[in-house]
C-alpha cells in the first residue's frame, strides 16, 4: 500500500467548512489522486462543530481512514474534538487572527498559527480565509498552487474572473506564508497511473440516483430528509432530460403511494427516504406486496430511533426492512457495499421489482450515501433490463377467451403476468384486500391460502446475483462478517490483520433478503469464529444469521451505535479480542 495523507478541516457550522473540504477534495481528485471524504455535521444550520475529513492516496479508498496528519482548525473546539485522530508528528494549522490555540501535550504534534483571516483580508476579502487554508495545506502536501486553478475557476467562474484571481491570490499567499515558516511536510505519493481508468468522483447518493435513471426509473416521489435528499437533487438535475418526473410529496406516505401508483401504470418508480420516512411507509409496503405491484424504496439509514441523530450514520433499519409491515409479504432487501454497488443494485432493483412483482428495498446509509469518493468508473455495461411478465394486447386478447386472471394462483412460480391500464382485455383491480385470481376481494379460506402461497412462492429459490461476497483465504478459521457500507472498513481491517499474521476472511452481504443461505453456508465453511460487525445496538444481522443459518456458538458481535462510522482500529481491536492469536492459525 502506498503512502497516504489524512487531512481535516473543522470549525463552526455555517463557516464554510464544507466548501473548504469540498474544494480541496475535488482538487485532489482532479489532480489524479484517489480521495475518500467524510463529513461530520450536526442537525442545525449555524453554530455547532463541523468537520470535513479527506483521506487521499494513490489507490482506491473504501474508508475514510483513522488518521489525521493535517488539521486545519478555525476554532479551539476543532482541536479538542479531533485531537485523538492526530498522528504523532502531525500538524495543526489554526487561524491565529481569531484565536490563540492550546493543545494537550500527550503527543508530539506541531501547532502553527497562521493569520488566515488577516491574509485573506489583505488579498481582498476575509471570506477567503478558507482559500488561504487551502494554500497552506497545498504547501504541506507539496502541491503547486497552480494545480488548483481549474477547480477555483469552476467554483468561482460564475462570479467573474476577478473573483477567481482574488481566490487564487489568497491561496498562493497561504502557500507562500507556510513555505517561509515551516518545514513540516506531508507529501502525497506519486500520482497513480490512471491510464484506461475512468477516474470519477461520486457519493453513494449520487450513484443511487444514477442507478435509478440507468435502471429505467422515470418517477421519483420523495419527501426531503437527511441523509437521502441528495438522491432527489441528483435526480432533479437529470430526470427532465429523459422525461422523468420528480414529485416532492407532502409526506412519505404519499411518496410511496405515488411510487406504487406509477408502477401500477407501468412506469418504473421509486421513493427515497431515511428511517423516519421509512417507518411511515410500512402500510404501503404491504399494499405493494399484497397487490403484487413493483416498487423500489431506497432507505439511506441514519441513527434512530425516532428522530435519533439525524446527521449521523447507523445500520439499524435492517429488521424493519426485512420484517416491516403487518402481515407477511414477499420482498427483496439489497445492501450495497460500495458507491459502484449503489449504482448497480439500484438499477437492478427495478428489474427485481418488475420480475417478482414485489417491493425491493435498497438499504444504504449516511456513511455510504454522503461520502464522496474517487472510483474507477461505474459498471454501466452490467445494467440490463428485465420488465418481467408484462402482457401484450395480443396476448391479452388470447387470454380473454378463457378469462384473464391477473392473480392466477395456479402459475408454478407464483408470478402471474401483468396487464397495464390502457390495454384492451386486461382490465383488473389491483388491491390490498385478499382476492381471487381475477382480483375480486374474497374471504373464502381456500382462496386465501392459495393466494398467500402464490405470493410466498415467488421468491422460493431466489437466485439473482450473489448475495454474499467472500474475501481472504478459503480455509481461514476466522471471519469478519458485515452488510452494506461497512465493506470497505472490514476489507481494510482484514488486510491489516493478515499483515499481522492473523488469517481472516471477510464475508459480506449485499443482499440480506431473501437470505442467501446456501452462499453463506459455503462462506462459513471452516470458520470457527465469526465477528459480525454492524452499526446498531442489538446485533440485527447476527440475529438474522442465527435465525436463518444457525452458527449460534460461532457468532460474536462488534457493535457501534454512537453515530460515528466504525474506525479501522475498532474493527482490528475487536478482532484481536475475539480471535485467539495462534490457536487455529
Amino acid at each position, binding site marked *: 500500500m502506498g503512502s497516504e495523507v489524512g487531512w481535516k478541516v473543522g470549525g463552526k457550522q455555517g463557516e464554510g467548512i464544507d466548501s473548504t473540504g469540498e474544494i480541496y477534495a475535488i482538487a485532489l481528485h*482532479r489532480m489524479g489522486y484517489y480521495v475518500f471524504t467524510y463529513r461530520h455535521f450536526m442537525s442545525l444550520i449555524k453554530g455547532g462543530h463541523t468537520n470535513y475529513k479527506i483521506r487521499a492516496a494513490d489507490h482506491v479508498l473504501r474508508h475514510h481512514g483513522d488518521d489525521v496528519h493535517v488539521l486545519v482548525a478555525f476554532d479551539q473546539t476543532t482541536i479538542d474534538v479531533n485531537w485523538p485522530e492526530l498522528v504523532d508528528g502531525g500538524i495543526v494549522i489554526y487561524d491565529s487572527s481569531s484565536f490563540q490555540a492550546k493543545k494537550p501535550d500527550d503527543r508530539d504534534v506541531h501547532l502553527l498559527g497562521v493569520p488566515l483571516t488577516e491574509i485573506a483580508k489583505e488579498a481582498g476579502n476575509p471570506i477567503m480565509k478558507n482559500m488561504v487554508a487551502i494554500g497552506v495545506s497545498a504547501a504541506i502536501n507539496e502541491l503547486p498552487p497552480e494545480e488548483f486553478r481549474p477547480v477555483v475557476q469552476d467554483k468561482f467562474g460564475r462570479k467573474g474572473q476577478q473573483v477567481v484571481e482574488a481566490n487564487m491570490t489568497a491561496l498562493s499567499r497561504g502557500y507562500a506564508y507556510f513555505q517561509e515558516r515551516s518545514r513540516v511536510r506531508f507529501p502525497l505519493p506519486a500520482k497513480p497511473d490512471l491510464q484506461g481508468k475512468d477516474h470519477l468522483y461520486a457519493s453513494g447518493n449520487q450513484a443511487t440516483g444514477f442507478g435509478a435513471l440507468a435502471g429505467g426509473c422515470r418517477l421519483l416521489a420523495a419527501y426531503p430528509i437527511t441523509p437521502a435528499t441528495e438522491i432527489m437533487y441528483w435526480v432533479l438535475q437529470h*430526470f427532465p432530460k429523459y422525461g422523468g418526473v420528480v414529485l416532492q410529496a407532502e409526506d412519505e*406516505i404519499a411518496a410511496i*403511494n405515488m411510487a406504487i401508483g406509477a408502477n*401500477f401504470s407501468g412506469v418504473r418508480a421509486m421513493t427515497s427516504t431515511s428511517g423516519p420516512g421509512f417507518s411511515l411507509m410500512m402500510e404501503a409496503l404491504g399494499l405493494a406486496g399484497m397487490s403484487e405491484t413493483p416498487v423500489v424504496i431506497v432507505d439511506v439509514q441514519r441513527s434512530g430511533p425516532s428522530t435519533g441523530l439525524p446527521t449521523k450514520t447507523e445500520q439499524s433499519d435492517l429488521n424493519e426492512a426485512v420484517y416491516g409491515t403487518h402481515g407477511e409479504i414477499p420482498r427483496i432487501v439489497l445492501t450495497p457495499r460500495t458507491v459502484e454497488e449503489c449504482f448497480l443494485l439500484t438499477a437492478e432493483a427495478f428489474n427485481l421489482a418488475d420480475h417478482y412483482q414485489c417491493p425491493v428495498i435498497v438499504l444504504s446509509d449516511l456513511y455510504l450515501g454522503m461520502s464522496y469518493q474517487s472510483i474507477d468508473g461505474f459498471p454501466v455495461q452490467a445494467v440490463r433490463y428485465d420488465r418481467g411478465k408484462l402482457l401484450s394486447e395480443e396476448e391479452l386478447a388470447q387470454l380473454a377467451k378463457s378469462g384473464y386472471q391477473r392473480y392466477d394462483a395456479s402459475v408454478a412460480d407464483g408470478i402471474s403476468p401483468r396487464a397495464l391500464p*390502457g390495454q384492451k382485455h*386486461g*382490465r383488473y*383491480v389491483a388491491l390490498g384486500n385478499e382476492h381471487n385470481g381475477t382480483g375480486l376481494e374474497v374471504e373464502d379460506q381456500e382462496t386465501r391460502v392459495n393466494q398467500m402461497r402464490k405470493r410466498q412462492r415467488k421468491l422460493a429459490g431466489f437466485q439473482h446475483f450473489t448475495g454474499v461476497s467472500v474475501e481472504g483465504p478459503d480455509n481461514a478459521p476466522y471471519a469478519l462478517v458485515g452488510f452494506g457500507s461497512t465493506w470497505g472498513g472490514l476489507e481494510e481491517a482484514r488486510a491489516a490483520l493478515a499483515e499481522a499474521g492473523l488469517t481472516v476472511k471477510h464475508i459480506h452481504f449485499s443482499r440480506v433478503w431473501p437470505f442467501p443461505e446456501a452462499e453463506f453456508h459455503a462462506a462459513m465453511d471452516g470458520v470457527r469464529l465469526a465477528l459480525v460487525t454492524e452499526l446498531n445496538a442489538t446485533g440485527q444481522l447476527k440475529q438474522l444469521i442465527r435465525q436463518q443459518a444457525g452458527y449460534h456458538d460461532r457468532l460474536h458481535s462488534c457493535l457501534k451505535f454512537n453515530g460515528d462510522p466504525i474506525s479501522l482500529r475498532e474493527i482490528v481491536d475487536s478482532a484481536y479480542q475475539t480471535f485467539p492469536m495462534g490457536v487455529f492459525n
Partner: protein
Amino acid sequence: MATMVDYKAEKATWCPGCGDFGVLNALQKACVNLGLEPEQVVVVSGIGCSGKISQHFGGYGLHALHGRSLPAAQAVKLANRHLTVIAAGGDGDGFGIGMGHFIHAMRRNIDITYVVMDNHIYGLTTGQASPTSDVGAKTKTSPAGTVEQPIAPLQLALAQNCSFVAQGFSGNIKQLVSLIERAIQHKGFSFVNVFSPCVTFNKVNTYEFYKEHLVNLDDDPTYDPRDRVAALRRVAEANNILVGVIYEDPDRPSFEESLRGYPAEPLVRQDIALQAADYAALLETFR
C-alpha cells in the same frame, strides 16, 4: 363506442338503497357519454364502503389504502397521461385520514377527478363519527353527540384555490352525471363532493333530508362559477347544503403543463434503456 353494458362489473355489495349505487351509476354514465372506453379509465379508491367502487366500476382499478387514493391516483396519471383517472372514496377516507393529500392534490393540480362519497359517517366500520358529521350527531363513537366542528369540504377547496369544485347528490343522478362529465373534462384537478346517504348508519342525512334542504345552483342562471369570492359566500349562505358547479378556473395550467421536460407522449411508452451517448454525458458530470 362503449355503452353501459361494457362497464358492467361484479354486482355491487352495498346495502340496498345505499347512495353509492347512484355515484357508481353516474360515474359510468359520464364515462359513456364522454366516449371513454373502460380500459382507458382507472378508478383509484380508498378503503370504506365507498372504496369498493373501483371493483364495481368495470375499468382498471387500484383499490388503494385507507386515505391514500389521491397520491396513488396522481402518479397513475403522470405515468400515463392518456388515461382518465378518477380517485374516489368516503368522507372519512378523504377528509379524515387522507386530508393532507387532498390539500396537496389541489395545490398540484394534476389532471385527475376526485369524487368523494360523503355520507357523514363511517359506513364500513359500522357507524362511527366522521369528519363531516354535524355537531351533535349521535354515532357509535359519539353517543352524546359529536362536539367537533365538521370539515367544510367546499370552502376548504375554494380556500385552497382548487381549479374545479362541484357538489352533487346521489338522489339526482342526471345532474351528477353532468357534474362528473364536466369534472373529467376540466384540465387540472377537479373535486366533486357527493351527498351519498348511508341508509344503514345515518338516519339524519337521508335522501329526504337532502331533497328538502338542497339548493340547486342550476336553478340560478345568475350564478357565476368563475367568481371564487362569490362562491365562498354562496356556500356559506347555504351552509354547504347546495349542489351544482361551485367554482371552475379553466385557465389555470395543470401540473403536467408546467412540469419541465414532461413529455407529450405517455411516460409509460418511453424507451427506458440508456444509450452509450447518454452514459458518456452522464459520466462526464462525475469527473
